[in-house]
């Protein structure tokens, strides 16, 4: 996982609530056996017509949208399935942070494990971000994981919470498997106790 300390980048807004993982990446793209190349399938049904041509009115298809690294959405982002293809697709497209009012539990976990930072904002702070981007879509945002803060034009507008361990891993580009493997002795002890059980 690529470390993330602080990110200053332009953003894209898809202002909808309950953006489910079937919208983030439809199931027909889950027939892969690796993680690469899923960026093209991100929001596929909103992004492309049936024949594969980009839909002119969808924000990801605007010429200015290229290279944006922050996605701004509404409430309950990532609801639905546990498919990790959702953060893989976001990452594949180039997004490193999603700013939303709230996140579904499984998506949040999956995103953090892939270097995509879910930032939950309160109503007022979320409103500020939307207003700033409505006024100037090219406005850069800073998402600072060290300070757990979001700033706009150099001014800190929100702080956010992240699980302490996930933050530690993301700041340092660590994955959790290495940490888990470290507890081999505890696992073995647990398993030995367990095998004493009468069933």
């Amino acid at each position, binding site marked *: 996982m690529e470390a993330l300390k602080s990110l200053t980048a332009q953003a894209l807004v898809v202002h*909808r*609530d*309950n953006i*489910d993982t*079937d*919208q983030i990446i*439809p*199931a*027909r793209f*889950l*027939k*892969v*056996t*690796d*993680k690469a190349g899923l960026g093209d399938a991100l929001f596929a*049904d909103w992004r492309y017509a*049936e024949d594969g041509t980009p839909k002119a009115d969808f924000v990801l298809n605007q010429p200015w949208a290229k290279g944006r690294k922050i996605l701004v959405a*509404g*409430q*309950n982002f990532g*609801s*639905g*399935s*546990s*498919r*990790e293809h959702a*953060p893989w697709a976001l990452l594949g497209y180039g997004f490193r942070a999603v700013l939303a009012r*709230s996140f*579904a*539990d*499984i998506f949040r*976990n*999956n995103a953090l*494990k*892939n270097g995509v930072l879910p930032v939950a904002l309160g109503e007022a702070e979320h409103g500020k971000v939307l207003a700033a981007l409505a006024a100037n879509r090219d406005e850069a945002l800073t998402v600072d994981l060290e300070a757990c803060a979001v700033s706009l034009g150099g001014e800190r507008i929100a702080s956010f919470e992240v*699980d*302490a*361990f996930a933050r530690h891993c993301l700041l340092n580009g660590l*994955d*959790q*498997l290495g*940490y*888990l*493997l470290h*507890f*081999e002795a*505890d*696992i073995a002890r*647990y*398993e030995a106790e*367990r095998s004493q059980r*009468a*069933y």
Partner: protein
Amino acid sequence: MSQQAQTLVDKVWDRHIVSEQPDRPSMIYIDLHLIHEVTSPQAFAALEERGLKLRQPERTVATMDHSTPTDPRRLEVLDGQSRKQLDLLRRNCEKYGVTLYGLGHNRNGIVHVIGPELGLTQPGMTIVCGDSHTSTHGAFGALAFGIGTTEVSHVLATQCLLQHRPKSFEVRVDGELPEGVGAKDIALAIIAEIGTDGGTGHVFEFRGSAIEALSMEGRMTLCNMSIEAGARAGLVAPDEKTFAYLEGRDFAPKGAAWQAAVADWRSLSTDEGATFSRSLTLDASKLAPMITFGTNPGMGQAIDKDLPRPEDLGSDQAAAELQKALDYMGLESGKALLGHPVDVVFIGSCTNSRISDLREAAEIFKGRQVAEGVRTLVVPGSQDIKRQAEAEGLDAVFRAAGAEWREPGCSMCIAMNGDQLSPGQYAVSTSNRNFEGRQGRGGRTFLASPRTAAAAAIKGCVTDPRTVKAG
């Protein structure tokens, strides 16, 4: 362990703590890890990359379900990409010594159907799968939840996960369900009430007289839908019905071990005086058959109500969301949904493909015909269920009515295997998600119970099942 009054969730949790460190999530042990073709390939690749072993092959069980054709010709109609995924799962299972109930196996089926059926799912266990509907197994008093592929690799390698203790959310349903109303209607009513994120950060414990009265199949339907309300898991305390369901199943303990297990499982209920973080109470006697009209499972209501109006909603954002959903669905606010034409009826999925669901549907199909122009698929959840249904003659009822009787699999629930809606088509479906395009690009889904789905099939439109008597 503490002497304080505890919830069921906390009891199961405490039994599985392997290690707790400051500022770190708890490390918990996983008793049963279910895997399938779609969310496991990259996890096995992670083991491979690091040269790790699978820690507990006997706690890992695999099936093929998401992309398997339900067409009786099966392998002939399998697409190349799906074939590659299935082949890879087979190779991974062989290499790492995992039991596979694959395509062609006489116990194959949907992962959340075969776990309980084989007796793998047991009270007090922790159960995970790279699949959000793992919550289904909570019906047995197990703490069961969906995980992503990275976590699948963690469990493969260590049999453990890093997790925070979930908060518990009491969902109490008392009273007697009216005729024609079942577990699916309870589930849809709960989600309509609290929304698709109402349970975020929590685990549901379903309790109350209406829950006790549900069959194990009904409890599975209800727990299955927990995730649609945002709760990663939902569970029901085990009772005599649970034990009766499990006794004698392939992997259930036998003899003295069975006695010991049941004695232990009886302690798995929430103590008197334990507190929940949140509570919700529903009166079962007031429930009606439910149906969804929108593009998430929270957009549901009693089937005989008129469609909601965006202008009646509190916030502009909510009104805009509802309008978008109605537009996608091609529906007009304020109108009735009853009588709305239907193109496809799907009876299946890990929510409603069990024998009781098929019996419920067959009662309505019996002696009747599927309406002209309606395609009806009945997809049993497993080979076991298929055999049982055939032994009871249910397949003959479906076929005589003009419905298709298919091979087991996820099928049109996720539309990865060729079973899918065409753009614009309307389906009444017993599955769990009505997201845009979930059942095929541009398809429009009304979620409902097997009874309501069967009634729609014979009438050709959205129909109140209470108006269609058993045939």
